[in-house]
């Protein structure tokens, strides 16, 4: 290990030097257990803010969650005076990074604010009436801000994980400020990846729940990051990655690549079903049969009665179409079906083909409920759901096959164009 790496802990309230004139001025939140309602952390998190000093100015990169503003200002004041701050860079406008922005601007009103193009609207909402008091610059990939002998270059990296996310690169030091990207919820005051405890699990967990649904966009961000000379990655949560930073980029690249390589060129259609008395199961088999008549579609049939849905998520992520069969019980689809649908929050479903079918006794509303959820997941639902009262007759099974055939036609782009009147909707 190079001797330059120190394992010293920062004193309470002290800033931490990353490179000459570059400091961590963030805050530790060891008590946090649940982040943003959905994300758990077993040992808290950090909100990493940074300052960069150049010969002609100081830049502040991101701030912290509001309740930690005190710690942020305490550290900031030890490395810069407010009147020296020429630039405020906001890589992301989620509240865990902007809680001290309004107060910082009151203390350093001369600072020019740098946000990605989509950040403007959110900044306006954050600053309310004070928005008009400051100078805001919208920056795009390649734009720079000079601090004299040093400069910051911006990379527009939208949807990792909000529309306005961006990264900032300190060229002279090869230091990349990535905000949530390559971050994790892990609180260790030793701060650097070669000094903190084992955070590998937290790193994976954070990717799986925050970045995975946006993996297409993460991939675009990596396209911009990979060509850079990188000495250190400074994310906004968890350890600063100064030891082997390139490995984290390589690892992210692996994480955004297809988890299940497909050995076939066909479109993939997954049919999931739950059946109470065997009727929906009969329908499922017929739908699968009809769909499989199309040689360009690979059809798989799964019974959700096994109860565990998590193992299907990887499969769904790579699938072209997803069809759900559910009976209507107590006026609703069954819980396993909702569990499966809820697990889709971790993946991208936009543009996939969706469909629903099911047997029912009295009302049969489950099919429409599932269809509208599929639409909420940004899927297209071109074939109207199929509902059958009690057990299907042979002609009804033929309807199921027809339903399957239509789904396959839509998957392969061979569906007959149809024309209808507004009034029939």
């Amino acid at each position, binding site marked *: 290990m190079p001797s330059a790496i120190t394992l010293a802990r920062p004193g309470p309230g002290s800033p931490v030097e990353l490179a000459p004139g570059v400091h961590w001025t963030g805050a530790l939140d060891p008590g946090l257990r649940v982040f943003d309602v959905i994300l758990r952390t077993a040992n808290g998190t950090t909100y990493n803010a940074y300052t960069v000093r150049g010969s002609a100015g100081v830049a502040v990169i991101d701030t912290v969650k509001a309740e930690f503003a005190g710690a942020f200002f305490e550290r900031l004041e030890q490395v810069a005076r407010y009147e020296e701050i020429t630039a405020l860079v906001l890589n992301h406008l989620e509240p865990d990074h902007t809680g001290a922005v309004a107060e910082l601007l009151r203390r350093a009103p001369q600072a020019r604010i740098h946000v990605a193009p989509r950040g403007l609207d959110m900044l306006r909402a954050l600053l309310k009436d004070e928005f008009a008091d400051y100078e805001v610059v919208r920056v795009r990939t390649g734009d720079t801000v000079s601090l004299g002998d040093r400069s910051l270059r911006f990379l527009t990296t939208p949807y990792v994980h909000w529309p306005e996310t961006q990264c900032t690169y300190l060229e002279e030091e090869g230091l990349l400020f990535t905000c949530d990207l390559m971050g994790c919820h892990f609180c260790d005051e030793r701060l650097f990846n070669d000094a903190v405890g084992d955070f590998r699990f937290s790193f994976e967990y954070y990717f799986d729940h925050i970045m995975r649904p946006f993996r297409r966009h993460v991939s675009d961000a990596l396209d911009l990051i990979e060509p850079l000379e990188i000495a250190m990655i400074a994310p906004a949560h968890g350890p600063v990655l100064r030891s082997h930073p390139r490995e984290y980029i390589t690892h992210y690249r692996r994480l955004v690549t297809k988890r299940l390589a497909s050995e076939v060129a066909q479109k993939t259609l997954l049919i999931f079903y739950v059946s109470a008395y065997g009727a929906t199961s009969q329908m499922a088999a017929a739908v699968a049969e009809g769909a499989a008549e199309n040689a360009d579609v690979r059809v798989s049939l799964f019974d959700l009665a096994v109860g565990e849905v998590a193992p299907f998520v990887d499969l769904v992520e790579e699938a072209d179409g997803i069809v759900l069969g559910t009976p209507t019980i107590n006026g609703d689809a069954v819980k396993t079906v909702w569990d499966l649908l809820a697990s889709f929050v971790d993946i991208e479903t*936009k543009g996939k083909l969706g469909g629903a079918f099911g047997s029912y006794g009295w009302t049969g509303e489950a099919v429409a409920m599932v269809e509208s959820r599929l639409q909420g997941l940004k899927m*297209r639902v071109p074939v109207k759901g199929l509902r059958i009262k009690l057990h299907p007759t042979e002609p009804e099974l033929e309807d199921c096959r027809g339903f399957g055939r239509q789904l396959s036609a839509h998957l392969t782009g061979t569906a007959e*164009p149809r024309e209808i*009147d*507004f009034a029939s909707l």
Partner: protein
Amino acid sequence: MATAKLTFSDVALTVNVPSGTRIIEISEKVGAGITYGCREGECGTCLTRIESGAENLTEPSVLEQRVLKENMAARDERLACQCQVLGGEIKVRPA
């Protein structure tokens, strides 16, 4: 009453609609993959590619123009919750 032919190519369906109809009034009913957030022309979620017949839509309002710009929309993209069809044929798909 003047009508228009509005085609949703991702679901291979054409709907004959009265002029003045907004895309948002139809797209969900036919299962097209266009999705909505605010439904009021603010968030940009409903960004839609106009494959043909852009001239058969109402001109974008000042609000829509701003949101299109902030979302870095391409020249052939519009907000499905905002634009209305005037007549003729229009072909759309999710952006």
